């Protein structure tokens, strides 16, 4: 009995429900935000996402799918935005005052998140349960623990707490759900046979037993896709389904964790070289008032190319020696 209560409280579903509740509170606050001209659309967006979080495990898939289309339609028609009236608290003088008062103690609640995450993973491992699940459940409860720690430390109230969460959430906006959408795109690519199609195409050029050229094609594809799209997260599902898994991991029996994470950061080299990643390369040049809009990219390119070559060699070597 206690065991079943334990496993349902400390489960991934409990954490999803918790996150769903937070999203519903954000949504209600957004509906009431008079400074936001798009409060209806934004409120609907976060409310729907909250519902998907709470009921995603039990709702029929077609319903979740339709709700996802609704989310994307709201964003597609520009109905998701944030209010203008909220003052950014990081701008005020009060922040400096608080910083003097609290000092480094302000890091305690933030540090609680990774500490609780790690502890959960360790406990799950001790109990012989899935460590990955432990880390994810720990992330949820870490967030909760950090909320309590932060309230206790600052003496603030729950309403301010949730409103600050909403401020950060709305600042990031609808792109929050992008990783989830990209992963779904990968699944649909697989269902439609796109991955095997790309794999066949590459096999016509590169012999299936030439590991080095396959690794090269994998890392090159990742970097090129990232350069064009400006986003390594968007490139990863395509390369993983089309090249990495069918041509490298499966035929050569490669450790998937090692190959996957090295492939992802091979894309980061592309991010360093593309104006498409405007937030990282073009906006800073503007912020720093640089004469050359591409100055940051030019500085980063030799570094990016060298680090990319290192990825190719490292991946190839790690597969060779294993």
């Amino acid at each position, binding site marked *: 009995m206690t065991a079943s209560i334990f496993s349902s409280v400390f489960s991934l579903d409990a954490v999803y429900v918790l996150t769903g509740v937070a999203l519903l509170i954000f949504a209600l606050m957004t509906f009431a935000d008079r400074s936001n001209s798009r409060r209806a659309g934004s409120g609907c967006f976060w409310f729907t996402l909250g519902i998907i979080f709470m009921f995603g495990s039990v709702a029929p898939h077609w319903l979740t*799918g339709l709700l996802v289309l609704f989310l994307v339609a709201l964003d597609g028609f520009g109905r998701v935005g944030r209010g203008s009236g909220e003052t950014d608290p990081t701008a005020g003088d009060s922040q400096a005052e608080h910083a003097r008062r609290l000092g480094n103690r302000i890091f305690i609640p933030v540090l609680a998140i990774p500490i609780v995450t790690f502890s959960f993973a360790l406990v799950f491992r001790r109990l012989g349960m899935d460590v990955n699940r432990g880390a994810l459940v720990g992330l949820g409860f870490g967030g909760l623990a950090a*909320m309590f720690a932060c309230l206790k430390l600052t003496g*603030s109230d729950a309403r301010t707490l949730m409103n600050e969460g909403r401020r950060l959430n709305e600042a*990031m906006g609808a792109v929050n759900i992008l990783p989830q959408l990209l992963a779904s795109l990968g699944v*649909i690519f697989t269902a439609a046979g796109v991955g095997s199609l790309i794999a066949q195409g590459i096999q016509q050029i590169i012999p299936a037993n030439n590991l080095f050229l396959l690794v090269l094609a994998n890392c090159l594809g990742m970097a090129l896709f990232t350069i064009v799209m400006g986003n390594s997260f968007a490139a990863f599902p395509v390369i993983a389904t089309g090249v990495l898994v069918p041509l490298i991991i499966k035929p050569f029996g490669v*450790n998937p964790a090692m190959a996957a994470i090295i492939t992802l950061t091979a894309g980061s080299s592309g991010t360093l070289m593309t104006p498409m990643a405007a937030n990282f390369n073009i906006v800073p040049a503007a912020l720093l008032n640089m004469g050359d809009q591409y100055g940051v990219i030019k500085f980063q390119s030799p570094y990016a190319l060298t680090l990319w070559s290192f990825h190719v060699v490292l991946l190839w070597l790690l597969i060779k020696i294993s």
Partner: protein
Amino acid sequence: MHIQDLLKLIGVAIVVIGLALRLRTTLVVVVAALATGLVAGLPLFSHEGFFQHLPYLTKPGQTGIINTLGRAFADNRLMTLFIITLPAIGLAERYGLQEQSANLIRKIRAATVGRLQIVYQLFRALHGLMGIRLNGHPVFVRPLIFPMSVGAAQATGSAPRAVERGSIPTERLLATAFSSVPRAVASRSIPTKDSFATARGADPVERIKASNAAAENYGNFYGQNLSPVQAGILLVYGVMQGLGLTVGVWDLVRYTIPIVAASIILAIIQFSWLDRSLARTAEVKK
């Protein structure tokens, strides 16, 4: 290969063209998914419940695109779990989290421009390790790292005094602070008249500015994979799961360590070269 097969690549084309044209990212991705499924002949809905009575929308024995989308989206909720950490981080920001981070940065005593960039990159990699995600360009680089770098350069005599003109109003800094990629393009036009007055390329101040932005990107991009709660790790975990391969989040973190090490060593080399070339410029002036 048949034409029918090649048509399946339409999804890849839609993603590439859509993102290159900077159309709304979420919409591009979902349209690509729907188009790919339809071209491959998959039905919109599974053949079950009341849907099996609807014409055209289902095919017996095949899973619908909308069903697959819903299942995959629900399975990958773990990627968006970071939302639960936002209230605590937001409240901490209100009570001086960034200000206190800035205080720590101000305590850095780096003798040269290059060494300051290395320390800052390590500081940003530490953020990644702690699971904090932020865009450091408006928060740290522009207000702190750039002036500190100029100070270090002036102390060693490699940058002219009074370079710090034409500063940007705070509102604009804050406006770009958390803006997402598409919105950020609007600020492309910022470079102003006086910035064109400065020389290009060889100008030491230009190179210092570029190195400031680079240190932020190097530390942010590679350091963030050091924590299993970060988006990159969760994305890889979810995508591999979708492909039928279970990977451990801690294994992903472990295998990113050599990459982070290489990213730091390479940066040390590049920033030391910067120091040397700045020193040369200083000598030429004397």
